[in-house]
């Protein structure tokens, strides 16, 4: 991934903040729905939930593209000065992996659906091509892959959120507040 050589911005753009939280909420919701729905006995409700989960996944995928395009044109603010080098590297690696998984998770779900013989049609209107032939063994394998990628992402999201909270409470820098500006305003009022 290459970013423009301009100087880092002093703050995130509103668009970057909006996309971050929109995708964060959508990811948590869609992940939770996935965990809940897959154990349900077959029912019309289950079929509906599966469709909603798939529509949400496609939507997230599109927002992630939008986000990446925005990110390539707008450098994020620099990490706080004085942060240990290994932490900065770890943060960078985590962010890159999160971007990767934000693409890989929906794609693995789409491929899994294809292999299981259930086409994905966005909001029941826009059909996505089935990239794989129906193959139940491959479908089961891709289900494992989808699950593994999801749990990896969940772990990284927890690490990411934990690090942000640690920056806020222990390091007392602006790493969290620059992504949550209302926290900074509140702090200023007190």
């Amino acid at each position, binding site marked *: 991934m290459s970013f423009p050589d301009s100087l880092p911005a002093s703050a995130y753009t509103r668009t970057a903040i909006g996309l971050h939280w929109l995708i964060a909420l959508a990811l948590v919701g869609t992940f939770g729905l996935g965990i809940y729905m897959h154990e349900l006995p*077959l*029912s*019309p*409700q289950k079929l*509906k939930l*599966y469709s909603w989960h798939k529509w949400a996944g496609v939507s997230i995928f599109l927002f992630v593209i939008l986000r990446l395009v925005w990110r390539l044109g707008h450098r994020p603010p620099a990490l706080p000065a004085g942060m240990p080098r290994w932490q900065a590297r770890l943060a960078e690696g985590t962010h890159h992996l999160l971007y990767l998984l934000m693409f890989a998770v929906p794609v693995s779900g789409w491929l899994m659906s294809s292999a299981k*013989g*259930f086409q994905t049609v966005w909001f*029941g209107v826009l059909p996505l091509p089935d990239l794989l032939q129906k193959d139940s063994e491959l479908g089961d394998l891709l289900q494992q892959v989808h699950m593994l990628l999801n749990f990896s992402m969940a772990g990284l999201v927890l690490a990411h959120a934990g690090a942000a909270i640690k920056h806020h409470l222990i390091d007392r820098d602006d790493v969290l507040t620059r992504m949550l500006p209302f926290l900074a305003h509140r702090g200023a009022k007190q």
Partner: protein
Amino acid sequence: MRTTLSSLALIASLLTAAPAHAVEYTQFQAAKSSLSFVYKQMNLPVDGQFKSFRAKIAFDPAQPAATKAEFEIDLASIDAGSKDANDEVAGKAWFNTKQFPVAKFVTSSVKPLGNNRYEVAGKMSIKGKTLDLATPVTVTQQGNSASFDGSLVLKRADYAIGDGIWADFGTVANEIQIKFRLVASSK
């Protein structure tokens, strides 16, 4: 002149051959036959098929009205698109295969429509319910066998297939598109 002669020869051979080889297709060929369907789930088509079915056919193209056919489907042999679906449709709400293992169609009349097409009418029994059913069938004769092809739309609610929580057509549509090919050979 030559064409006239050859057509005369052809007609002559047909005239002599036809009565001698009056064919009646009676031997059902399970391996060459198929019974598939498409249903809509959340408005998306899902393919399925029945793997085990039998037919008794007696079809003489010279006397189509005398055709007799009986058709039996082992409902438990369904592939409804996924293992979950197969387990579900065997249950009480759908086919209730324990109590009603077989669906049956018995012809009552066959009327020629021209161009090797016939209107086949009969009684369809599924899940303890018997209803009239009519569908056009195309007959293709090739070698010593004939294939009977057709498609029809069956409304699952007519036979209470998919009852209870499934009765609403929002998730699984009422119309099931059925496609069949039955092959029978002459003796």
